[in-house]
């Protein structure tokens, strides 16, 4: 029966080219946007660069200080003192890495001013993130401890400075300091928030040690564990430490809220989190994303419902005949749903091709520097699910409405 439904559907599409074209156009545009959005979201949640092992780590990148009554609220990146006092002593993580957020710096190359991103890190940073070295290597613990002026740069920066990437041993001047290049890594897109930069140097090369006494600043930390299950322990340990042991001497800001989050939790907290709460709101994010996707699909779906009803209405004689010769309502419902699913799958395939074209365009345009959109099974599966939901949402109502037509009325309409 399924084969027959499919064959009938295919014949209907071929014979009703105009309707098929209009339907496919609407489906293709809607689904292209959904596939592109899915791919971009996937790129953020499941990075393919240095953060590809992100299920093994949590990130601490925000600190909110309040007074007892929570009337004064001050949110910023954590300072080194906060990380030193409340993060580095944590026992649950196997490795803790401390690093600054990337800052924009200006340099002059051949009298041309260029802007670059500079990040200062510890030696553990290179253990927890999986950078791909093109030349050389990262700095080790000893170089970090001794504050060696060494730098790792990305391919783009190497080409900007030297027109080649094999630049280990060369020197660059950054903010009045001279650094020796010891490694060149592949470019990292800004979607990988913790890894992205153009240049990485040890934070022990900072000109002063004032940062060591700052509760707020521009530091971040990664809590790493080889067993992702154990990260929950690290989260709890960190929250308990803040709840019960936080002391901020000589300040009225006596309460601290901070979080060790995975990618999804970080995203949820950015959208829905409250500064003075430990709640992640991850469920809210998931529900919101699903509702937003459905809402986005609703308008084109209503349009499709109308188109489908017109398309099926034209075939009321067929409905009457099929019913007269023994088709049950459910068989007709399935026939029309399968027709719609097939049409949507064809539109989805076109949308998939179009989205590859668009994403390639985004890559080439440099809109998101260094970004690479590769399709994987997960994106394919989610896109396919979206396509099927779209097909069902837009196809079920017309199928039910038309399949329940009285055969006598359907035959009269078909005259």
């Amino acid at each position, binding site marked *: *029966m399924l*084969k*027959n439904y499919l064959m*009938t559907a295919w*014949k*209907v599409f071929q*014979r*009703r080219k105009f309707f098929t074209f209009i339907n496919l156009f609407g489906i293709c545009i809607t689904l292209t946007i959904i596939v592109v959005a899915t791919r971009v979201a996937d790129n953020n949640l499941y990075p393919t660069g240095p953060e590809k092992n992100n299920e093994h780590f949590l990130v601490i990148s925000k600190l909110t200080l309040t007074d007892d009554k929570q009337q004064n609220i001050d949110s910023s990146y954590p300072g080194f003192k906060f990380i030193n006092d409340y993060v580095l002593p944590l026992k649950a993580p196997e490795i803790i890495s401390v690093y600054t957020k990337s800052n924009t710096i200006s340099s002059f190359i051949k009298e041309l001013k260029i802007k670059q991103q500079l990040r200062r890190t510890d030696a553990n940073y290179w253990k927890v993130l999986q950078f791909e070295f093109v030349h050389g290597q990262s700095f080790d613990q000893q170089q970090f401890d001794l504050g060696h002026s060494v730098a790792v740069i990305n391919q783009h920066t190497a080409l900007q400075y030297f027109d080649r990437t094999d630049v280990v041993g060369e020197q660059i001047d950054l903010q009045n300091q001279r650094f020796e290049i010891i490694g060149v890594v592949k470019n990292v897109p800004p979607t990988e928030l913790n890894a992205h930069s153009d240049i990485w140097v040890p934070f022990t090369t900072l000109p002063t040690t004032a940062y060591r006494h700052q509760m707020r600043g521009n530091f971040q930390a990664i809590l790493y564990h080889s067993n992702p299950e154990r990260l929950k322990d690290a989260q709890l340990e960190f929250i308990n430490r803040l709840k019960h042991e936080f002391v901020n001497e000589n300040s009225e800001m006596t309460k601290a809220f901070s979080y060790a989050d995975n990618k999804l939790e970080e995203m949820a907290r950015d959208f829905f989190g409250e500064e003075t709460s430990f709640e992640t709101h991850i469920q809210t994010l998931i529900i919101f994303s699903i509702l937003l996707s459905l809402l986005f699909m609703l308008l084109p779906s209503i349009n499709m419902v109308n188109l489908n009803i017109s398309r099926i209405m034209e*075939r009321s*004689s*067929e409905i*009457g*005949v*099929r*019913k*007269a*010769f*023994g*088709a*049950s*309502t459910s*068989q007709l419902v399935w026939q029309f749903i399968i027709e719609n699913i097939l049409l949507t799958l064809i539109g989805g395939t076109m949308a998939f091709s179009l989205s590859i074209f668009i994403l390639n365009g985004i890559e080439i345009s440099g809109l998101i520097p260094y970004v690479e959109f590769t399709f994987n099974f997960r994106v394919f599966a989610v896109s396919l699910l979206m396509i099927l939901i779209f097909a069902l949402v837009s196809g079920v109502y017309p199928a039910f409405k038309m399949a329940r037509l*009285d*055969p*006598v009325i359907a*035959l009269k309409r*078909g*005259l």
Partner: protein
Amino acid sequence: MLHLTNISKTYQTDKIETTALSNIDLSIKKGEFISVMGPSGCGKSTLLNIIGLLDQPSDGQITVAGQQITSYKDKDITQLRNEKIGFIFQSFHLISDLRVIDNVELPLLYRKISAKKRRQMALEALEKVGLSARTLHYPNQLSGGQQQRVAVARAIVGKPKLLLADEPTGNLDSHMGDEIMKIIESLHKNHETTIVMVTHDEAMAKRTERIVRVFDGQLVH
């Protein structure tokens, strides 16, 4: 074969109640070939739709082969229609998106029959109506007479016990109409199919075994 007892059919709109059929009693024997005649709007087609279980009466009982249909569920009626009844319509009602062979196969789709067997049965039915050479054509590539022959093939492909024809020659010229009538007559003669045919044509009606006349929704004797 078929008994209609005290059948009435009324259509209710906002303000008006229209009676299409009133107190119809009709028995049709197995293998009988009857025609139903009457002026336009007298209720002939409504009667045929009720006999074919496409429409439900407002009142009365239908009995097919000793079984009362009024108590049947929709699913059972669908199955009964599929297995026992074939329809021929005045305006053919062929599915324009499907080829001739696929149109003829249609009633068999709703039975548990293999694709190969379906194809074989459809070819046999098309042979009976003399259209073996047009199996891969689409309906709009055929003349009116050929389309009605396809419709006849579709009606008989499932070997129904009861064949209902609603003015089968109404849209055809007299020559084509005669051809279709001959096919229907041969079905009755060779396969003992019970046939109920609605017609306006007195000459066609006279070729059947019994004429039932309807006037203003009632049988006229």
